[in-house]
């Protein structure tokens, strides 16, 4: 079977695809989050050193993963939109940015509440925290630059280039716990194995998949709004709105 990759490059067809995907993803997010929270709060044992407070991990780590991964996906869409001048790519990048910023904020916020009882401080100017904070500002800069022009296409291209310049921050965040020996601990999970209890790992993975599904659902819903707004003068949007009215 030959897949026509250009089919979904048209806003009209992508709009329908996004509308079909979003509810499924939100449903998957709800189910996975319920399962993840059950495992996290009921099944997973109390940590020997930290007590109950370690359960912040079930939202902190997935949010931190998503904050970096969404930026990476966003930059891929930006590269796509800059090199091939695709409209949907730029719209997807714009739709992903607020979700990424939200996850970055959640990672910082939950990290502060985890740090207070365990490290004795809400915030330390540690390499990983600082670079995560810079990531939050990169998301804000991306959103602000995209909205700063009269012509949305101009905003698309300028913010896409900014996202590509800012991607140097990603390896710095990822490797910060290896390069600098600071307060934030290293990773407990790798492809070669884990230093965690198996129920803790499952709770974390379920929550990570829930965040993943939520991110896809939220960005698909947002991209539909962006497509409708940008394409409001086209016949298919008029036909759609006319059919609804």
């Amino acid at each position, binding site marked *: 079977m030959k897949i026509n990759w250009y089919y979904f490059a048209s806003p009209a067809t992508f709009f329908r695809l996004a509308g079909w995907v979003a509810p499924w993803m939100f449903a998957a997010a709800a189910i996975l989050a319920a399962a993840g929270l059950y495992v996290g709060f009921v099944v997973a044992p109390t940590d020997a050193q930290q007590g109950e407070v370690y359960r912040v991990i079930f939202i902190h780590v997935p949010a931190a993963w998503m904050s970096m991964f969404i930026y990476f996906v966003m930059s891929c869409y930006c590269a796509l939109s*800059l090199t091939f001048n695709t409209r949907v790519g730029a719209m997807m990048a714009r739709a992903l940015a607020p979700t990424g910023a939200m996850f970055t904020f959640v990672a910082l916020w939950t990290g502060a509440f985890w740090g207070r009882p365990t490290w004795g401080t809400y915030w330390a100017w540690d390499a990983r925290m*600082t670079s995560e904070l*810079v990531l939050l*500002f*990169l998301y*804000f*800069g991306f959103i*602000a*630059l995209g909205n*700063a*022009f009269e012509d949305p296409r*101009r905003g698309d*291209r*300028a*913010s896409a*280039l*900014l996202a*590509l*310049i*800012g991607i140097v921050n990603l390896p*710095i965040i990822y490797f910060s716990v290896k390069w600098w020996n600071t307060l934030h601990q290293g990773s407990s999970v790798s492809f070669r194995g884990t230093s965690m209890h198996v129920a803790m790992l499952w709770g974390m993975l379920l929550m990570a998949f829930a965040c993943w599904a939520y991110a896809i659902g939220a960005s698909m819903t947002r991209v539909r709004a962006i497509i409708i707004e940008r394409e409001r003068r086209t016949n298919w949007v008029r036909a759609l709105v006319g059919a609804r009215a």
Partner: protein
Amino acid sequence: MSAAVEPVPVTAVRGSFGGGFAWSFGRDLTLALRHPGETMLVVAFFVLVASLFPLGVGAEPQLLQRIGPGVIWVCALLAAFLSLPTLFATDYADGSLEQMQLSPHPMAAWVSGKIAAHWVASGLPLTVLSPLLGLQYGLQADTLGALALALLLGTPTLSLLGAACTALALGARGGGMLLALLALPLFVPVLIFGAGAAEAQAAGLTAAPHFSILGAALILAVMGLPFAVCTAVRIALD
């Protein structure tokens, strides 16, 4: 009897990297020298803000020695940031930038020349002045040297990163605040390693790793960022 008009011989200008670089470097530097007020404003701002800190936090010698390198770096960063609009915005406003785009020289050449001129007019004076400010903070001689060397390696990176951000923000609403949101987060790594160099020296350690990282960042920035700036200018002129 009217004098015949001599036809001006038309010589085609051959585009070259060196020619483009030298032309825009000379032009922007001449402009900076013809408006010495603007150039001096950057330096005055740098000295003034650095002098405010001892008045604000108290003039205890040990405290000043401790915060000196960091404060001077933050001031240099802000001064470099505040001088960014002169880099492209005025040329964009009066249409010169479009004319330059028509020049036979490669775009990366004259863009690099402009950035180099920006550094000579803003980063270099700050580097030269930094030991003087360091003396106000009571820094030791070797710390002063580390501070100046770190600024020498770091401020060109700031000019390059800032050039990319100011080119991206050409014609955008929200002017200075938007530029701050774009540029300052990207300046953070340079600030960390730049200030770290002088602090390591002051603590009796070697500053060499910091210099290596600053140098590596500068090499990467010189190789990559002029092309990003070109793309940003092309987006702006579209």
